[in-house]
């Protein structure tokens, strides 16, 4: 029963979120703050994770494709396709659900328990829209850029590490990342990122917005938000892959 209650309340919250804003200028101001807070502040983490994952995948592909019958270019191809199709979209979204999602839940949840949300409501402001809409737009907007950044730095990580540890040469790696390239993979992953961005912002916002109690409950809501967002990301990954790729 709780599941249906939560689903219903989530959609009724979304209805309020997408209501007409009181003053567009204030929402835009908030949007730029959120792009900086949720998006730009995540760039460093995305770059670090992507470089390491790109490097590790190159070494692992080299290990798996050690048979001399396989061309070395497969290492570059494998690294590129794994990054483009799954890591830089789904895995990155799962990581961001932890970073951005818990941030959103704890921020909105703290505002709820300290009556800041009641204060907005009493002023006549649609608190759901004012607090959540800029976050959703900011995350949906920034996620495709994070995806591109992640693919780029992941491939760069492989390019730096592969030759360094002696599993592949630079020309072989570069030939590999250009081999059998399908631009549709990028379109597909950007579509996924838009969906994931929406989930990463809206689901944690829901858990924060309806939190009741104090600091302990905000912490619990944060954990619940991350777990539920991760499950939904994987579910949508499955659905979108089935719909768009097969």
């Amino acid at each position, binding site marked *: 029963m709780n599941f249906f209650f939560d689903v219903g309340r989530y959609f009724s919250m979304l209805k309020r979120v997408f209501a007409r804003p*009181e003053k567009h200028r204030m929402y835009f101001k908030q949007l730029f703050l959120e792009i900086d807070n949720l998006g730009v502040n995540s760039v460093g983490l995305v770059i670090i994770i992507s470089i390491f994952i790109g490097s590790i995948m190159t070494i692992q592909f080299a290990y798996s494709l050690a048979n001399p019958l396989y061309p070395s270019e497969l290492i570059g191809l494998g690294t590129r396709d794994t990054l483009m199709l799954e890591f830089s979209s789904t895995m990155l979204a799962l990581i961001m659900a932890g970073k951005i999602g818990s941030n959103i839940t704890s921020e909105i949840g703290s505002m709820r328990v300290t009556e*800041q949300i009641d*204060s907005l409501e*009493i002023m006549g402001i649609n608190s759901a829209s004012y607090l959540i809409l800029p976050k959703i737009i900011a995350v949906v907007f920034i996620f495709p850029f994070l995806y591109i950044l992640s693919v780029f730095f992941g491939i760069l990580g492989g390019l730096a590490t592969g030759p360094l540890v002696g599993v592949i040469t630079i020309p072989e790696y570069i030939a590999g990342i250009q081999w059998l390239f399908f631009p549709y993979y990028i379109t597909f992953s950007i579509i996924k990122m838009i969906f994931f961005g929406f989930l990463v912002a809206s689901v944690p916002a829901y858990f924060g917005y309806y939190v009741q109690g104090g600091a302990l409950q905000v912490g619990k809501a944060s954990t619940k938000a991350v777990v539920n967002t991760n499950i939904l990301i994987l579910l949508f990954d499955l659905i979108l892959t089935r719909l768009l790729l097969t």
Partner: protein
Amino acid sequence: MIEVKNIHKSFDGNEVLKGISTRFEKGKTNLIIGRSGSGKTVLLKSILGLFDVDQGEIWYNDRDFTKMKQKDRKLLRQEIEMVFQGGALFDSISVEDNVRFPLDMFTMMTTIEKQKRVAFCLDHVNIEKKAFRLNPSEISGGMQKRVAIARAISLNPKYLFCDEPNSGLDPETATVIDKLIQSLTKEFQMTTIINTHDMNSVIEIGESILFISKGKKEWVGTKNEVLNSHNKKLNDFIFANKLYAQMREGN
């Protein structure tokens, strides 16, 4: 003026408000007093529309709040401000920006006009200029309450609600906050409703006092009448503190 008529409110079958009717006058500090759990906050939040009442009417002058559409309620809310128990200041922005927030949201004032208004409001509650750029977490509890009051008066509200505005403050600061709310009520001719269980506030600023017990209206009067009432429940509440019992004996 705000008038409530026979309001009832239940939560999961537990009736918290049991047919309360009363009137809160303009230009007066109207106090709601009662023990913890007596229904004070539920009454306040019901009047504000944060809770929908099960039965009864709430009138803001000649407007029936209970029958209003959401759109009209939103418009009315721009005439209402509230000072929360914890201040409820937005902690991500400065003191100055907190007071400016309602002006940014609801007025077409120029930047200079807004600056003047913010300075006027903060000056009225005795906040020094050097605190304007600080964040709420960097100022004391008493100052936070004063900033919350400054934010509340920034749009010249007709109705001001205060939920235990001096809880957690030392007696001297609490008195300053009480006097400040009273003087602003007179100056701006607001209808002010204060929810409190602080007897000092009752004695200091209780121009009209509503005592509720177990969700029912028990007694209505003024600060001059409260110490000499014959209502047993009210006396039990007030004279739980021996100081007030002695005050009554010494008249």
